[in-house]
């Protein structure tokens, strides 16, 4: 999931360098991600990081835009015959440390008056391995992560994801506080991709769309206006993103959706015009 979302998020590089390969990916675990961003080891944290108030106000980071609406769920061994997270009283749950997941888990069990045995691991890999070996009854993380981990298990069909979603996990790329131009660039890259989907601009038809008469498309692709220049880029910035990566929907389906092994449904991440929450801010 980390790799998948990182790929999903390789847009700013396309915008700046005109080449998505001109970027250095630094793999981070939950434990050291904020420190790496704070200290300047990385410039954008495009991981499955939840945008919360305390992180926004006390960690010295800023969040650019919600590129994936997620929520925390539970996976259990099918042999336990559990159908709801509310039946998990007394269960041992494996969880990755230093995440909002760890906090939501304790909150959920407490508010439902259930007792809990948490087994905390530094990385998701260790947590899932312990779950698979039977150390825990359940593994919990964001539901996108659950589907991603499930296909990697030796017998995916012996595990089910419970229906309850116990938290709001708006995942967003994070940048260091104080570099506002960079933050703008990361934010508008996301919105340009969503706008492209709303306007029907795709990787395949982007060259034809350059001739479009629709003023919104003309502004998006840099035919009209100086929007790229105001970000410190060339005016065809969004054209280059769409040409190399595609619009939001294409990127979603390719990396985590139907075109990927994860098969995550659009759900909350559908466009607002189709009952979802993804809403591209206007470029004008």
């Amino acid at each position, binding site marked *: 999931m980390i790799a998948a979302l990182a790929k999903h998020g390789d847009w700013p590089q396309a915008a700046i360098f005109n080449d998505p390969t001109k970027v250095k990916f630094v793999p981070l675990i*939950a*434990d050291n991600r*904020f*420190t790496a961003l*704070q200290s300047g080891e990385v410039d954008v944290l495009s991981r499955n990081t939840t945008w919360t108030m305390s*992180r926004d106000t*006390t*960690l*010295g980071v800023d969040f650019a835009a919600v590129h994936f609406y997620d929520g925390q769920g539970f996976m259990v061994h099918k042999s*336990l015959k559990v159908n709801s997270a509310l039946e*998990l*009283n*007394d*269960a*041992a749950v494996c969880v990755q*440390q*230093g*995440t909002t997941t*760890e*906090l939501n*888990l*304790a*909150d959920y069990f*407490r508010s439902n008056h259930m007792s*809990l*045995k*948490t*087994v*905390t*691991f*530094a990385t998701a890999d*260790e*947590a899932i391995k*312990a779950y698979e*070996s*039977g*150390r825990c*009854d359940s593994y919990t993380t964001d539901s996108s992560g659950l589907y991603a981990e499930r296909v990697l298990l030796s017998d995916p069909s012996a595990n089910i994801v419970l229906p309850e979603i116990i938290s709001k996990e708006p995942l967003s790329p994070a940048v*260091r*506080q*104080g570099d506002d131009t960079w933050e703008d660039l990361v934010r508008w890259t996301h919105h340009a991709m969503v706008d492209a989907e709303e306007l029907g601009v795709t990787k395949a038809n982007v060259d034809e769309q350059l001739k479009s008469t629709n003023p919104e498309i003309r502004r998006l692709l840099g035919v009209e206006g100086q929007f790229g220049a105001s970000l410190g880029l060339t005016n065809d910035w969004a054209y280059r993103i769409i040409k190399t990566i595609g619009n939001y929907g294409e990127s979603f389906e390719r990396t985590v959706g139907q075109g990927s092994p994860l098969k995550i449904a659009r759900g909350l991440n559908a466009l607002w015009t189709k009952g979802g929450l993804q809403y591209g801010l206007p470029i004008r």
Partner: protein
Amino acid sequence: MTDFARSSRWYGRRIGWFALQAGLLVVVGGLAYGAVVNASQNLARANIPTGFGFWNNTAGFDISQTLIDYSPSTSTFGRAFWVGLVNTLLVSGLGIVLATVIGFAIGLARLSRNWLMSRLASSYVELVRNVPLLLQILFWYNAVLKSLPELRGSVVLPGHALLNNRGLFLPRPQFGSDFIAVLAVTVAGIVATLILRQWARQRQIRTGARLPVFWPAVGMIVAVLLAVFAVAGFPLSFNLPEMGRFNVRGGIEILPEFAALLLALAIYTAAFIAEVVRAGVLAVPHGQTEAAQALGLRSSMALRLIIVPQAMRVIVPPLTSQYLNLIKNSSLAVAIGYPDLVQVFDGSVLNITGQAVQVVAITMAVYLVISLVTSLLMNIYGRATGVVER
């Protein structure tokens, strides 16, 4: 060359040394000051709060092993720190005891004249000390985890203990109100035994006659204890572990993470301690053994009264560094999810609060204090048991 010339050159060299040391001190102090100023400026620029205000905020996350009261909803980050510290001290303390026992046994076995025993002991040392500790921890954890049965197939051990891949569950003793009397009688019995032993020894020195100590001691401690126990109506019951739907309820829970870490630390460090012990014993000249035999001491007495006390003088300093290694190595707990200080404080607390500088500094200071206290205690022990030079 005159005396004066020699002394002035000597002074010159001394002043040179002094200047060098002072210069070094200034450089080190300047670097430290620069680091502090740089860190605080960078934190201020990034709007990250400094100070220790986070200490009293609610933690909100759960910890799998808590020897002191802790609840995610009400306990603070500070409390989580203490929980982690106690867990570190528990695994280090037990690890030191176990490693010492195994290490001494293996070290002495390696010196044994029995071929099989000494070969086995040296194979143990060579095998264990040459495999990285992290791998050994992962081996024990995965071996312990994978080979144990699942909850429903729990092994029931004698005395209602349960063993499965969630851990070992022992009956938890619950003491009745009269148990204090039993405790008092036991303490009284032990004190009486010590007095008897002292008196018997003085009598042996005075008259040469030996008094039996062992059987009276058994009578004073065990028999009296059982009698009082029966009179008080057995004020001791056990809270037995029971199978719940998902987990075992009640009893004392020993986590597999704890067991794996303890085993790996003890077995690994024991290999080094065995070599320290062997070196210590070999350092005692063979003439000492011959002298003991000439005095008519049995070999067990010669070992206890002549060899070991002299060997200890050589053993204690390197033994101390093995203890310090074990304490620091216990932080490898992060690899298998045992909630030690580093896992809880540098993992969860650091990530939730984002206070990297403070959290890491506190953790380093704690390890420094634990290590300094350990070497202080070992130095006191070494001085108390060391051979007094006359």
